């Protein structure tokens, strides 16, 4: 893992902690961005952590770019020694796989896809070596996921599967991005899952939809009254497969203000996870079940 620094014009520094994705790179980026926030460096206007990199926006009239760069490099060595452990929350997110809305959309954009004769799930199952779509869906929701970045558009979480690399599902993005994606589509591209927080363009494969809104600019939904964005980096997600009836029930209950997601507070320790992945995940899911 080698950290690479670059200026993004005269107002940003882009820091690639590693060129490939890993939880080690994510935790290092999280530690450094935490240290930057804590230091309250005059001139820093935005700190944006990402999957295996991060970005700082600064005002070069307040701090010279070279001085800003030196500050970040000094913080990197400090962050390397920080324990890779966080107190976070695990959230159960219902998913209606093979729903009619993403199906309609994926058929509409079929000519932009690697497999114009199938569906996104057929394709993803096949290239990942599964005998059936059912088995692929099972692999998608049987273990938890980690929110390794929030962004792209309003409150969209990027999710990284908490399994060893051999078991991680990977799918390419669409050959050409779509101009439309249903709101709350559960997508997948590269090694990242996502939930499209709003309707719009997108290039990820579409597997299903959740009835759980995750961005609410009106701040009227019961679990987003405090803030309009639900997810934060470090959150853990457990997909819960549901059918159409359950989807519609939850959707109505969200509107009525009577539904909120199941959430439990948990500790996540990267060393413990690396030592025993299945045991750690079992413990995380038990905490959720007890919530």
């Amino acid at each position, binding site marked *: 893992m080698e950290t690479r620094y*670059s*200026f*993004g*014009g*005269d*107002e*940003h520094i*882009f820091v*690639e902690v*590693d*060129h*490939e*994705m*890993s939880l080690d790179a994510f935790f290092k980026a999280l530690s450094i961005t935490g240290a930057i926030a804590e230091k309250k460096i005059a001139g820093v*206007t*935005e*700190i*944006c*952590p*990402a*999957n*295996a*990199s*991060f*970005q700082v*926006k600064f005002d*070069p*009239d307040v701090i010279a*770019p*070279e001085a800003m760069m030196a500050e970040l490099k000094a913080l990197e060595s400090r962050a390397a020694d920080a324990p890779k452990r966080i107190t976070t929350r695990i959230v159960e997110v219902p998913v209606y796989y093979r729903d009619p809305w993403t199906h309609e959309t994926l058929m509409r954009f079929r000519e932009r896809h690697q497999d114009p004769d199938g569906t996104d799930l057929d394709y993803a199952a096949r290239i990942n070596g599964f005998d059936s779509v059912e088995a692929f869906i099972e692999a998608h929701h049987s273990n938890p996921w980690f929110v390794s*970045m*929030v*962004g*792209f*558009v*309003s*409150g*969209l979480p*990027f999710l990284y599967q908490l399994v060893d*690399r051999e078991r991680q599902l*990977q799918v*390419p*993005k669409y050959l050409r991005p779509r101009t439309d994606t249903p709101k709350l589509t559960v997508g997948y*591209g*590269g*090694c*990242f899952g996502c939930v499209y*927080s*709003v309707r*719009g363009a997108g*290039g990820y494969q579409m597997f299903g939809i959740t009835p759980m809104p995750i*961005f609410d*600019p*009106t701040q009227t939904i019961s679990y987003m009254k405090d803030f309009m*964005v639900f997810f934060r980096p470090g959150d853990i997600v457990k997909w819960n497969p549901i059918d159409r009836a359950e989807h519609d029930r939850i959707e109505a209950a969200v509107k009525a203000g009577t539904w909120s997601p199941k959430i439990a507070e948990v500790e996540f320790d990267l060393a413990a996870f690396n030592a025993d992945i299945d045991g750690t995940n079992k413990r995380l899911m038990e905490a959720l079940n007890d919530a």
Partner: protein
Amino acid sequence: MTLEIVKPGLLTTIQDLGRPGYFHLGIPIGGAMDRLALIAANRLVGNDEGAAALEAVFIGPQIVFGRDATVAVTGAEMPVMIDGEEKPGWTALAVKAGQVLSFGYLKDGARIYIAVSGGIATPPQLGSRSTYAIGALGGVDGRAVAAGDVLPLGDSAGAAEGRSVSATLRRRPGAPARLRVLPGLYWHRITEESQANFFADTWMVAAEADRMGYRFKGGRPLEFVPRDPPFGAGSDPSNIVDGCYPYGSIQVPGGTEPIVLHRDAVSGGGYFMIGTIISADMDLIGQLQPNVKVNFEEVDMPAALAARHERATLVDQIRAETA
């Protein structure tokens, strides 16, 4: 205390200087594409520089004033009409309640800014009135203005009629437009020949050019330095492990058509970037029409900071003229 939208034009949005602080959640800074023009318009009518005004692209709106006010139109060159009579741009104009502001055909540039004394007083969200339609934030119920919308105005005595910003202070992109770039980010991912070609070629603004980003076409495709795709990035050589995108950064999906991210940018994604437009030239991009020619010019950090200083001096000169 209001103004009413009779015709919205093509896409007219309420914009101020934006909502910094939420990019890490995918909510962009937003605000006026041409900040210099917004500041000038606000100063001409006696507003705070960051008051909310209307930004109209390509086609001007038609609006009727609900009270006496001072209005100023800056940015692109587009004939300004009050009750059908042509008036000068970049100038404080007095209007009476019931008078109609309308516009002729666009002559140069892409976006006009219409500031009204008191500023537009729609409710701010996350500290800004700027319209960010994708996130349904700001504007009128999170959207662009529509015919029949009645917009509230802040209280103001209005400024004196007639003062204006000199023609020499109205910055224009030129033809071909020159956009200065600080190479960096994933610059090393393309060959030296492609690096040279990028600056040697003349590019054209493509049809996909909006508040999120401007796409360019016409230059030679970029060649990549060979590599094994890193885990999680995707197999295309233009893919990276999804990371943050700086404002002004130039991503090149598939190595073919560069896209410069602007005020309503997506905050991150999986395409590599070759560098970033310097802060001083971001306003100019907002005045580019599709099909105009653009040259990208390589600069280093000292040159970027010198250009930033020059732009700040220009703002000071506008302030002095409108004090």
